[in-house]
């Protein structure tokens, strides 16, 4: 079973050389810490920076330099700043190659719900709806089940949707799953996790074909 860093590290293996990548808040942010060797990528943050670097050294924070999570960041050589319209132009125009974000629920046809729980305070979708409606390559980083132990990989989302049929891959503490043809296809197991465990934790249609390898790090 993976911890948050493990999930991030496994997702980092999905990065390809020359990818521009948008990382959401939470586990996705950690992906930046595990870029495979020999791979050059650039991170976009939708509030208006391309070429985002790590957090600043203590004392070097700049209030005018934050990411979409409102955290102080740095800019790498070759970075650029731009306004929010150009930023979402990059996203909608599919210039950003990969988007990693969290979710409350994902359905077997790739629907995602991650912004609203009826009856609870609704904070808003931020840029999530633009991101999921636009990117070709959307990877969800999340826990396989919620705090009550219920599966978050469902036949249909029960929560209000963020986007329709857009998620291509889900990486959880248990598994890597690809979504196609209306089903979750099990690609890899987390170290020490059995196929039965994953089956039990997946409410949506799960396809297990042949031997399922363990993730490699």
């Amino acid at each position, binding site marked *: 079973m993976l911890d948050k860093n493990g999930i991030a590290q496994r997702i980092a293996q999905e990065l390809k050389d020359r990818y521009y990548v948008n990382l959401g808040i939470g586990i996705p942010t950690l992906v930046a810490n595990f870029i495979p060797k020999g791979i050059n990528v650039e991170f976009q943050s939708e*509030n208006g920076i391309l070429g985002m670097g790590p957090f600043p050294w203590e004392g070097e*924070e700049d209030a005018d330099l934050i990411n979409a999570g409102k955290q102080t960041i740095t800019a790498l050589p070759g970075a650029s700043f731009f306004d929010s319209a150009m930023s979402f132009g990059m996203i909608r125009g599919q210039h950003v190659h990969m988007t990693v974000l969290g979710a409350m629920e994902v359905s077997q046809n790739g629907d995602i719900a991650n912004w609203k729980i009826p009856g609870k305070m609704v904070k808003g979708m931020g840029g999530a709806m633009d991101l999921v409606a636009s990117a070709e390559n959307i990877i969800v980083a999340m826990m396989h089940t919620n705090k009550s132990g219920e599966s978050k990989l469902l036949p249909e989302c029960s929560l209000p949707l963020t986007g329709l049929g857009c998620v291509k891959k889900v990486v959880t503490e248990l598994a890597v799953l690809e979504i196609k043809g209306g089903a979750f296809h099990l690609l890899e197991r987390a170290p020490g996790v059995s196929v039965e465990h994953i089956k039990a934790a997946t409410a949506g249609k799960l396809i297990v074909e042949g031997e399922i390898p363990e993730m490699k790090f």
Partner: protein
Amino acid sequence: MITKIVENAWAATEGISDGMTVMFGGFGLCGIPENSIAAIRKRGTKQLTCISNNAGVDGFGLGLLLETKQIKKMISSYVGENNEFEKQMISGELEVDLIPQGTLAERCKAAGAGIPAFFTPAGYGTEVAEGKEVRIFNGKPHILEHAFDASFAFVKAWKGDEAGNLIFKGTARNFNPLMAMAGRITVAEVEELVPAGSLDPNSIHIPGIFVQRIFKGEQFEKRIEQRTVRQKQTS
């Protein structure tokens, strides 16, 4: 040259009145028009509909206008981190219209550029699309979104000149240029106000034609919402 300088935030906010729709630049607390917000609070203008990506935090940014109940409605993409907001929203005092961030940005830009409506894929299949026209382009469904209409836009820039030209710094740019284009009256507060000819005309983010009033902000607190740092290793 057409000069745009006004004396201060008070003069710059002249004409704002109860019930108006107004825009505020900024993302989180980054690049917000602090001085204009303070002046509007002082004016006590009520029943405002505010278009702003976020709604500030308790005691800062638009949180200051929530405290005094000057805001009737927020049009935003994300409104977390604000107890006063939550209280007023739950009690029904405050209306909230949540909009995908890219759509929010484009609706500002469209307003400034005389594009009354455009199609975007964002929000298709969600409650955001309810009641909106859907059309397929290149096999993909899109929804029709409309330009905003705001009486005032309050923006914050790094440098500005007397002709109203603006330059923004870092990610404090965000929605500011778009709202500057969109406002019927655009008010810019800047950290540095310089004579015309001091700024490189190639480097201007917003030409002065979009700005009706400009002033040097008295002070900028520039509060940081999430201070995240790396610790220097002691060797």
